């Protein structure tokens, strides 16, 4: 899977969780949760969905690595698949 | 025959041409009635026919409605095509037993063996200051009876054509002609021709409201509709033409289009044709109505003699205009 494909899947998931926002306009280094006003519940929902889609498991201590779009896409690229 | 030609003729002339054409077309056709021969008809509809067709086919009869209507029914049973003229509907009560109990029922009573192809013409309505006993609008009485076909000639075309089609019917037909319209000039196709006698007629198409009427109401309604077309009301005018069996399809289609209906007729309002039309609309196309169905009918009094009171006792063009405006909230 390419970086662009991953990015597209992430954006689609974000759209479902925050339909009123425009995730496609995010800059790679924007803090996703702050920009899209995503609370902890929605953040968890997003993570559940991404884990399912990419067949990975994100431990809590890695939350810091996925704050930005760049960080999140890189994390998914490198994450071990189940 | 050139059907594209139209004539401007009186209603009386239209009726006469129909009668003459019927006599010419079929040897079995003959006319019997009071004063139809030597006198030329009480409304001069049959003037000159005795001279042209002779006393065997233009037959003056004694003043006995029961007798001569019965004779007509007998002639029809024997294979002729009689046209019985009852001078006016006012006298037809004397022949009611023949019409209701014989003409209308024999097909049924004979188990389908005996058709009664009689045509009974009657003039009807008011308009000549003939007062309470001679001004009746009794179309509803006949429209009540199964076994009869009841026609109303509200236009010149129908005056000139309905008789010809009626004579092709195997069952008894009553044709109502309108006393008040005899001298009225109008346009009709240039030659007497058969007309459909199963469908109502759309005299004027419109989209805002359906005026459903017959007989003397047709031209009055049309005049009212034309007057209002300038002020943005586009009324449809339906001439029922066939009062029995009624062409409900045309009525329903019109109401489905316009969503409003005004029923206009000279007959008294209680238990009249409009009452029936209103009930049928309610039963079948209620959910297409945007306003209650309204009626304009004859005032429920014996017909007065003075001209101004006679005029006031049935709906006139002005009444129709006012009612239409009110129904469409432009008043």
């Amino acid at each position, binding site marked *: 899977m390419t970086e662009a494909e991953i990015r597209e899947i992430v954006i689609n998931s974000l759209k479902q969780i925050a339909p009123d926002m425009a995730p496609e306009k995010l800059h790679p280094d924007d803090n996703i949760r702050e920009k899209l006003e995503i609370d*902890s*519940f929605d953040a968890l929902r997003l*993570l559940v969905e991404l884990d399912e889609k990419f067949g990975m498991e994100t431990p809590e201590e890695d939350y810091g690595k996925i704050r930005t779009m760049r960080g999140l896409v890189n994390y998914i690229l490198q994450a071990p698949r189940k | 025959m050139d059907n594209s030609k139209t004539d401007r003729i009186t209603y009386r002339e239209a009726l006469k041409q129909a009668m003459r054409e019927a006599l010419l077309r079929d040897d079995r056709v003959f006319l019997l009635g009071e004063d139809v021969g030597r006198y030329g008809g009480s409304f001069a509809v049959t003037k000159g026919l005795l001279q042209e067709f002779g006393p065997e086919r233009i037959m003056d009869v004694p003043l006995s409605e029961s007798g001569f209507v019965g004779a007509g029914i007998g002639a029809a049973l024997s294979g002729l095509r009689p046209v019985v003229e009852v001078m006016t509907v006012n006298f037809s009560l004397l022949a009611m037993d023949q019409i209701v109990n014989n003409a209308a029922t024999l097909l049924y009573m004979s188990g389908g063996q005996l058709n009664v192809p009689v045509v009974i013409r009657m003039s009807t309505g008011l308009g000549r200051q003939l007062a309470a006993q001679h001004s009746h609008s009794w179309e509803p009485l006949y429209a009540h009876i199964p076994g009869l076909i009841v026609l109303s000639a509200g236009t010149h075309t129908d005056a000139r054509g309905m008789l010809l089609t009626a004579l092709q019917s195997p069952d008894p037909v009553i044709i109502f002609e309108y006393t008040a319209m005899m001298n009225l000039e109008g346009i009709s196709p240039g030659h007497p021709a058969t007309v459909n006698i199963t469908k109502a007629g759309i005299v004027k198409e419109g989209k805002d409201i359906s005026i459903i009427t017959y007989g003397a109401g047709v031209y009055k309604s049309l005049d009212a509709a034309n007057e209002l077309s300038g002020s943005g009301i586009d009324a449809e005018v339906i001439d029922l033409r066939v009062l029995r069996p009624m062409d409900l399809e045309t009525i329903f289609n019109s109401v489905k289009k316009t969503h409003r209906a005004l029923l206009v007729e000279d007959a008294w309002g209680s238990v009249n044709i409009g009452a029936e039309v209103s009930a049928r609309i309610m039963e079948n196309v209620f959910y297409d*109505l*945007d*306003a209650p169905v309204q009626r304009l009918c004859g005032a429920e009094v014996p017909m007065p003699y003075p001209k101004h009171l006679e005029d006031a006792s049935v709906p006139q063009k002005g009444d129709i205009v006012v009612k239409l405006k009110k129904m469409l*909230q432009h008043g």
Partner: protein
Amino acid sequence: MGEFCMPSLGADMEAGTLREWLVKPGDPVKRGDIVAIVETQKGLIDIEVFEEGTIDKLTVREDEKVPVGTVMALIVSPIGTTAATEDIAVRPAIATEVPRIRASPLARKMAAKEGIGLAGIKGSGEGGTITREDIEKVISQKAPGVAEEKPVGTEGVRMAVAAAMSKSNREIPHFYLAKKVDMSKAMAWLMEANKQRNVKQRLLPAVLMVKAVAKALVEVPELNGYWDNGLQLKSDINIGFAISLRTGGVMIPAIHNADKKTLDELMALLNDIIPRARAMKLRSSELSDSTMTVTSLGESNADLVYGVIYPPQVALVGFGSILEQPWAENGMLGVRPVITITLAADHRATDGITGSRLLMAIDDHLQKPEML
């Protein structure tokens, strides 16, 4: 015969529009069944019935807007219980007289097809009858706008919040208390607990907070209730959990019997209820049953929150952000994750000492997260 009435889904609600009946006469119903969908300022709400029996008659038509308390349906009890009849006798008769909207048959048909409510449309026909023209006008007005696409405008929620909060500030003499709480034990426990859970089941700090408040209320029941010409305590502890909408406004669905639910159950419940609240698809009991409200600002937010009580409740507990702060304990200074918990309470119903007991009890429970 029982009566099913338009429920009050909050202090701010005066009327609701019946959008859809989910039952018809003859249908059996039992407590908790959703029988109707009602539109309020807070969206389309599934309305539950609290009686067992058979629907006898529907007395309010779809798309009709009626005041709270209007009888919407009659329910025949399974075995002729007479308990409800007394009720009917004392109820003012006007409640059952819903004025019939005058609309032509065609207008009604068109409105139903377009999903337009007749209430509120001004009729131009005779005697104010709504006609085809009036419906066409409504259709043409709503056609081009995108605003109508949203099922219920979020302005509706804004107005509902405005009404409730105005009433609260007007009528309730608030007092405020605050308590700083060391969250290191709670957060550590949570971290450990989540290691054993897959992502789907992971717990959030909010669950601990809700549970801690619910358990504290068991010990301080004086703050679990309504003020309505006097304090009325409630036996069930239903925590109203404030959920902010991205487009503005808040929804406060109830977490029923929060004190009796496990953390996992609470988490599952929140996962279900939050998206529904944001989509404005809540049930009537969720909107109306809260006995006390909890609001939590979440992470990286303001330090603390001074809440406005949601009437007719008498208290609201607010959780600020969890912040790393210097913390002195046993003569030692350390850095701890600290949260400031506040209480807004109704001084008509209670006093500072009771409020203080509640905050202390919440603190206690957060120090023993394994017991929550």
